[in-house]
């Protein structure tokens, strides 16, 4: 198996021109293999189990006792054959009654303890999973927008679904198996040694080849499991992408092409999946061979000694019964290694994700914004020597200074790629500047806690994503404690009330059921209402009216004129109509602010804005 190529599905989708693979560079994001710091996986597992310490102890104890009860059976058999039967022949019924009572007790204990153990271990497992799911989720949410722009949604989803699932399998079946296997090895070896030193020693000696087999399997399986986990992630990415883009898929008849591409990924998963199963088959044959050979050997020697009178028959019987049990769980040990390997591969990826530090971290000691005393919500924004470049290089915004006085509405115009959105994202703290500071009323954005930051700055973007839930829920994202009146007021202010009211269940309409039916323009209105409800000091509108029709845009503008009064606002728009409500216009080009002034000034001038404005006027004709 050429494991080096299968480990990187993201780079070889079959139809990709080969040259691009050579130039794709070592970006770990391309390979679904974020660097996992050494020891992080083990540390993660430890930290997950640490809070469960006492529960784990109780659970282990239950299993210990349960195994003790189970493993007493053959001992009673030996006793029955060697002692109780002769005693009974001598009319001493006591030993046989004891055997019967003892066996019944063992049965009750094994069953009862088994019940208690499953209950207890399920509790531990579920708590660990709850913890892990929560951690992944919270961490993914805490990571910054630029991380999400690089780590695809499909991968994040597979981290928190299939990868967690494989840990669940390990916990549900694996750990119990492992403890059972280890315990029964220990118990049975001890019993065998106690019954007969020689027979016991042979049994213990057989552990050496078994151990070697296990080691070999572990090494080989580790490789195939990692390959499988990567393969399924690639399948998920393709799946999610197709389902989320189903309209263009249909309109451009991509079904067959997609089937073919999916088949490549799916077959790679099939192959790696089969590899893992074959590894297991190999292991089973090996371990069974060793076990059965050992059984034959021990029986041979034991029987020989009973025949020559140096061993009790009952002891041989018990030894044989124990031996069957000794090697029984070997397959299950394999299954444990199985789930261990797949969980280890998954945990490694999860640990890699959790090791990512947010490039926009929350402050450890958050500062508060000074209280605004003038009765207006707006705050002053200062870009102080700010510059921004992507991590991969390529400067987007060269160093600049800019002050937006509190309460000012500023329009930012310029062609695509001029850096308008980057400016907005810096102000919303989706990114942190590569140099310099962004200040809100004199406080660096990096020092503000989340709640404080979001009461300060809110951004409405062009892509108006709706979460499943009702329309009202979606608006309430702006302010979760808002009453229905608040929500309706916000919707009315922005001109969204009419269409919401006309939906089948009004504000309680489930957008998922009719998600496709709320038009792009209507979704933008919902996004606006959401922002209004948030009532921020600084409002950023990034192309937020692009899908609205002219009356809709007008209505929004009218609403803005009142809503923005006293608020600081940054409006990015291609349509210059938006500029009419602005106090000030910035024209950007190639990352620089090339014009700055009031709309009237600029229109009257001869600069780029005057050009733009003329072109726009003409387009209205």
């Amino acid at each position, binding site marked *: 198996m050429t494991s080096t190529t299968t480990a990187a599905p993201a780079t070889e989708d079959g139809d990709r021109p080969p040259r691009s693979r050579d*130039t794709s560079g070592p970006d770990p994001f391309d390979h679904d293999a974020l660097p996992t710091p050494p020891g992080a996986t083990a540390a993660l597992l430890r930290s997950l189990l640490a809070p469960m310490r006492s529960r784990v102890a109780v659970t282990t104890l239950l299993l210990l006792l349960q195994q003790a009860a189970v493993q007493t*059976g053959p001992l*009673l058999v030996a006793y029955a054959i060697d002692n109780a039967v002769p005693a009974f022949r001598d009319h001493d019924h006591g030993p*046989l009654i004891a055997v019967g009572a003892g066996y*019944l007790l063992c*049965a*009750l204990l094994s069953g*009862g303890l*088994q*019940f208690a153990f*499953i209950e207890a*271990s*399920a509790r531990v497992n579920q708590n660990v999973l*709850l913890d892990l799911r929560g951690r992944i*989720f919270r961490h993914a949410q805490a990571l910054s*927008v630029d991380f999400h722009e690089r780590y695809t949604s499909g991968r994040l*989803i597979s981290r928190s*679904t299939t990868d967690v*699932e494989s840990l669940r399998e390990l916990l549900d079946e694996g750990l119990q198996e492992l403890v059972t296997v280890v315990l029964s090895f220990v118990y049975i070896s001890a019993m065998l040694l106690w019954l007969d030193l020689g027979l016991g020693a042979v049994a213990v000696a057989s552990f050496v080849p078994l151990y070697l087999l296990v080691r070999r399997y572990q090494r080989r399986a580790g490789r195939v499991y990692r390959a499988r986990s990567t393969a399924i992630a690639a399948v998920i*990415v393709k799946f999610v*992408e197709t*389902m*989320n883009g189903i*309209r*263009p898929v249909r*309109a*451009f008849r991509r079904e067959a092409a997609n089937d073919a591409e999916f088949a490549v990924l799916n077959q790679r998963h*099939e192959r790696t*999946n*089969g590899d893992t*199963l074959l590894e297991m088959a190999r292991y089973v*044959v090996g371990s*069974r061979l060793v076990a*059965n050979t050992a059984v034959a050997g021990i029986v*041979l020697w034991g*029987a020989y000694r009973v025949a*020559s009178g140096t061993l009790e*028959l009952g002891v041989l*019987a018990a030894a*044989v019964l124990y031996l069957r049990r000794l090697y029984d769980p070997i397959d299950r040990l394999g299954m444990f290694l199985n789930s261990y390997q797949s969980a280890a591969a998954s945990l490694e990826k999860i640990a890699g994700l959790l090791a990512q530090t947010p490039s926009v971290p929350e402050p450890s000691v958050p500062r508060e914004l000074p209280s605004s005393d003038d009765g207006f919500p707006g705050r002053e924004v200062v870009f102080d020597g700010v510059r921004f470049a992507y991590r991969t290089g390529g400067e987007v915004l060269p160093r600049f200074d800019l002050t937006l006085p509190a309460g000012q509405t500023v329009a930012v115009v*310029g*062609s*695509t790629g001029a850096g308008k959105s980057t400016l907005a994202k810096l102000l919303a703290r989706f990114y942190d500047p590569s140099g310099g500071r962004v200040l809100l009323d004199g406080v660096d954005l990096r020092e503000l806690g989340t709640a404080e930051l979001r009461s300060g700055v809110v*951004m409405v973007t062009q892509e108006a994503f709706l979460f499943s*839930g009702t329309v009202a829920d*979606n608006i309430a*994202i702006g302010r979760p404690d808002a009453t229905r009146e608040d929500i309706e007021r916000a919707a009315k202010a922005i001109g969204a009330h009419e269409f919401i009211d006309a939906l089948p269940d009004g504000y309680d309409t489930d957008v*998922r*059921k009719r998600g*496709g039916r709320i*038009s792009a323009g209507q979704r933008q209105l919902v996004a606006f209402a959401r922002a209004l409800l948030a009532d921020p000091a600084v409002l950023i509108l990034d192309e937020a009216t*692009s899908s*609205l*029709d*002219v*009356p809709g845009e007008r209505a929004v503008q009218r609403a803005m004129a009142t809503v923005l009064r006293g608020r600081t606002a940054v409006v990015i728009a*291609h349509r210059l109509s938006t500029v009419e409500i602005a106090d000030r216009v910035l024209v950007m080009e190639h990352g620089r602010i090339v014009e700055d002034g009031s709309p009237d000034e600029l229109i009257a001038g001869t600069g780029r804005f005057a050009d*733009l404005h003329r072109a*726009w006027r003409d*387009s209205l004709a």
Partner: protein
Amino acid sequence: MPTTRATTAEEARPERSAVRTLLRLWPYVRPVRARLFTAAIVAIVASCVGLVIPLVLKWMVDGPVADRAPAGVWLGALCLLLLGVAEAVLFGTRRWLVARPLSHVEAELRAAMYGRLQRLPVSFHDRWASGQLLSRATTDLMLLRMFLAFPLTFLLVNGVTILVGVVIMLMQDWVLGLVVLGPAVPVLWTCVVFERRYAEVARRAQDQVGDLTTVVEESVLGIRIIKGFGRHRAQSRAFHELSGRLRGTELRKARLLATIWGVIVTLPEAAIGAALVVGALRVADGELSAGTLVAFLSTALALRWPVDSIGFLLAMSQEAASATERYFEVMDEEPESSGTVAGGAGAGAEPGLRFHGVRFRYPDAPPDSPPLLDRVDLHIRPGESMALVGATGSGKTTLTALVPRLHEVTSGRISLNGVDIAAMPRAELRARVAVAFEEPTLFSTSVGENVLMGAADGAGKADLDRALSVARADFAHGLPEGTGTRVGEQGLSLSGGQRQRLALARAVVGRPEFLVLDDPLSALDVHTEAAVEAALRQVLADTTALIVAHRPSTVLLADRVALLSGGRIAAVGTHQELLRTNAEYAHLMSGAAAGEREDHA
């Protein structure tokens, strides 16, 4: 914060037996049935070999050992060794036999589901969260593979093993055999009761996993909003609540499992204890040889695993059954038919794109609700481009979706050059009609391939360059790897305007006969828009096009304008005509004419 519920109606799920449900997998399993069947036979043989071992022991204990004939034990040990080797090889063979085929079945199921999902009506996708679909295509299918690998084989194998074991025990000593068989009835009864309850809880857990997946997915896709409003803690709380609910369900599952295990461990163990006592009594009376007792107990113990395992095998089967149910909930949905509905011809060879009395209501809308589109009549002459104008939410996008049959008209018909689109194979229809959506989705492949998707096979570099230049998407040549640069989910992220231009290029690259553009320039700045318009005019000169427009600049691309209002075409004319004669149109175009928002009479 919004919460999610399982998309599937929990109320109206017909009671169906697990076996019947699982049988539906047969078509997928059929191709590998020979191997699977052979594997089961092999496993049965292997298990029976295991059962012969105690008999050899008995022969040794009662023969050479009792006779104090050490030489005789060699033969027995050799038998044991051979049986042991046979067992090992057989077990390995079983796994080897099924490894590839079962992965193949899983892959086939997934491919079939993917293929089906791609072909289900768009309205299906509107209804289903993709997280629910994803958990069906991954977690559920893994469950199914595991079911085929273990429970399916081992329920049979263990059943046979138990049967053979019981026969062996009865043959050795029928009294002891009956004692051991005693608990069979209560154990079976518990299994049956358990099976029913477990099925319910297992299904609930799977649905909850799907819901959880949906939340994860939404929180990733909506990350900018969550960040923008500082809502990630609330989102985490919502997630926590859902995962807490899942934990509760999983614990209930565990409790059921614990109960069945408790019963399955206690009763047989107690029966073995009873057999030991009875056996010992009879050995003492000399009615039974020690070897028989050892062999008997050894057999009984060998049957422990087969009996013990029935609990979790049934549990896995239950989970597999509900996974199957969830799988077929998707697979049972009707895909879009490949096209042709009979009739619809006879419209005459009317050239151009024509809507005849088109009425449309979303299939899941209440039947008494007013249709969204009500008697739309519109004729776009060949080579003509028609702008479609209407208020937000008036149904413009819906109308455009009807042309490539992403949705089906409720009544009325749409014809291309006189041919009813309902009578046309969908593939052909979609080849003739190119669409640019308002939300430009690019796929994880190169820029070039994203654009060339819109063309017939064999389109080349020249077509690509032409389309890129029409859409003013020449920036593509300047990307790190030119038009070979990968974009989409797994590639370079492009701005909204860039994506929109690529989507436009994709629509025009195939020089389609009919072009449907949904607000194709909304994300462009004024200069780019003007440039795109200039180039687009040449394309539109000889293409029949329907263009959804919000703005005068876009409207001016078209020869005529149709105003969509109240579910019908209220007016058709040139931009200037309508501006003069139609108040609603003037309002939509300038926003000022009517002053305030008003209901248009």
